[in-house]
């Protein structure tokens, strides 16, 4: 048995595998022993009550799916009273994911949910910022810095900023989150996409656009994890298209300290346990004693380009 324990900053996990927000709920206790997971990440909650987006809310894509669930919410009180207790019963740290519409609302919500029974707060700053025309907080370094600073002021809980792959200056966004005091980054959320039914001419999602997730986005997420890893010193939790232990290892090698599994659970509710077991098997096969030693260990040959150029220059 390899040592699967990892640390995300000060925070210790029995293994690096946890669910992605919105792709996990207590019902999975029927398919998994929740005491075996690294952490339990709950669906995002927003302080404002809302119904979520119109149906249809999901449609499939090649090697992936689009969703526009939105963040249906009955507010924080209801959440604390009716949702949270089911998760805090396990011997596994609980991560509460928060979405909000404005900087202040975000900070206040995080403060309110910084409860003793909550191990970590994940700030889903990939959600729309109403003060910036609905553009997600994490789309620019400036808005990221602002919201993360405000949150940091209001909580002493470990808190992770969940970034969006739709942001092009991802290294700068990551840096901004680090400088503003985030304890870790989750990289990342879904990629904005759209799909049209060519018979009815209607968008396949009620909300027209939605987030692409699943194996289709894995190369994009791996790349962004690696870019973040080169940009910041805080730990990174990789997320996007992970459906096997090999995928998880790929994210660890790229620079992640832990991983989140989303869409893959919809295809196999027991997949997280398989990934945990597979990580152990991988470590034993490859002679890796501690899974945490994999973080960032992609072997990039810095001289390769130069060698190639010299080699290629011989050509006419």
């Amino acid at each position, binding site marked *: 048995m390899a040592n699967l324990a990892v640390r995300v900053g000060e925070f210790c996990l029995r293994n690096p595998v946890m669910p992605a927000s*919105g*792709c*996990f*709920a207590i*019902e*999975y206790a*029927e*398919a998994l022993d929740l005491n075996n997971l690294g952490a339990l990440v709950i*669906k995002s909650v927003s302080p404002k009550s809302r*119904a*979520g987006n*119109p*149906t*249809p*809310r*999901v*449609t*499939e*894509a*090649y*090697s*992936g*799916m689009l*969703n526009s*669930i939105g963040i*249906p919410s009955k507010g924080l009180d209801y959440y604390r009273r009716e949702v949270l207790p089911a998760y805090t019963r396990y011997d596994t740290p609980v991560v509460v994911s928060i979405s909000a519409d404005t900087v202040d609302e975000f900070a206040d919500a995080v403060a309110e949910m910084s409860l003793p029974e909550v191990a970590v707060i994940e700030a889903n700053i990939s959600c729309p910022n109403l003060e910036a025309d609905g553009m997600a907080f994490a789309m620019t370094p400036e808005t990221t810095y602002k919201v993360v600073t405000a949150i940091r002021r209001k909580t002493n809980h470990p808190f992770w900023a969940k970034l969006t792959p739709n942001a092009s200056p991802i290294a700068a966004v990551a840096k901004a989150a680090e400088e503003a005091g985030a304890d870790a980054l989750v990289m990342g959320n879904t990629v904005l996409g759209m799909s049209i039914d060519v018979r009815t001419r*209607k968008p396949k999602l*009620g909300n027209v656009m939605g987030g692409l997730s*699943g194996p289709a986005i894995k190369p994009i997420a791996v790349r962004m994890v690696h870019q973040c890893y080169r940009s910041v010193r805080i730990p990174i939790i990789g997320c996007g298209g992970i459906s096997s232990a090999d995928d998880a290892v790929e994210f660890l090698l790229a620079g992640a300290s832990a991983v989140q599994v989303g*869409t893959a*659970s*919809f*295809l*196999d*509710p027991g997949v997280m346990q398989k990934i945990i077991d597979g990580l152990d098997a991988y470590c034993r096969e490859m002679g890796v004693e501690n899974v945490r030693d994999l973080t960032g260990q992609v072997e990039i040959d810095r001289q390769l380009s130069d060698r190639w150029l010299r080699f290629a220059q011989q050509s006419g």
Partner: protein
Amino acid sequence: MNDRYKYLRLAADADLAGATRPGQFYQLRCPTTNDLQPFLLRPMSVYGVGPESGTIEFLYNVTGAGTLALSTLEVGSGIDIVGPLGNTFVLESSVRRIMVVARGVGLATMAPLLQLAAKSGIGITAIMSARAPKDLMRDEFLRDVDADVHCVYDSDGSSSVEAMEALVRHLLDSRNHDVVYTCGSHRILMLLQRLLENYPQTRGEVAMEQRMACGMGVCLSCVRLFDKDGDKQFLRVCREGPVFPIREVVGEVEFG
């Protein structure tokens, strides 16, 4: 079965027959081929179980990539399924007679209910609706169950709302029915909802459909709005459903 409907029987080591109740469904991982790559699992009602404890049957309509891929499965090959999922039709022991109103592939969902009712000695009135007599699949629905069967068709107009309203009223008036069950047609559902206002002593249940991802209550993709005594709320078809009281369905708006 015919051009449009296909039959699928699976055998597993688990006691699927014992674990599965009428109205429940499974999520099927359809095969992947070079041309068809269904990504999500496909929800499918259980059409029948047994006689072996590991045996389970589905009846499906080929509509898109997933069901087309299913139809390429060769005898003897395996697929992954998740289930049983969802709630069940409720058939109280006090029930004496039920009415089932089925259209299209909705009959697959209700077939196990017929078996259960028949086994419990409950009387069955069955209304079957189809485009034309050749589409009816009467035998596939009844599977040797004894019932008072009424068939209506688009081809002769007998399935029109007016004609069906008259028929259902007539049947409900001539004998007491404890419960009315339906599946497979929004139009019929709305008709029954309206009619049941006049039969307060008759319960009504409908098996609903909605786009699903997880099928287990996790992702919130499959919600529909229901009215529980004036308290309107979104419920998950995969978890609180697929079976809902006919009276609670809020059917005013279609969102595609």
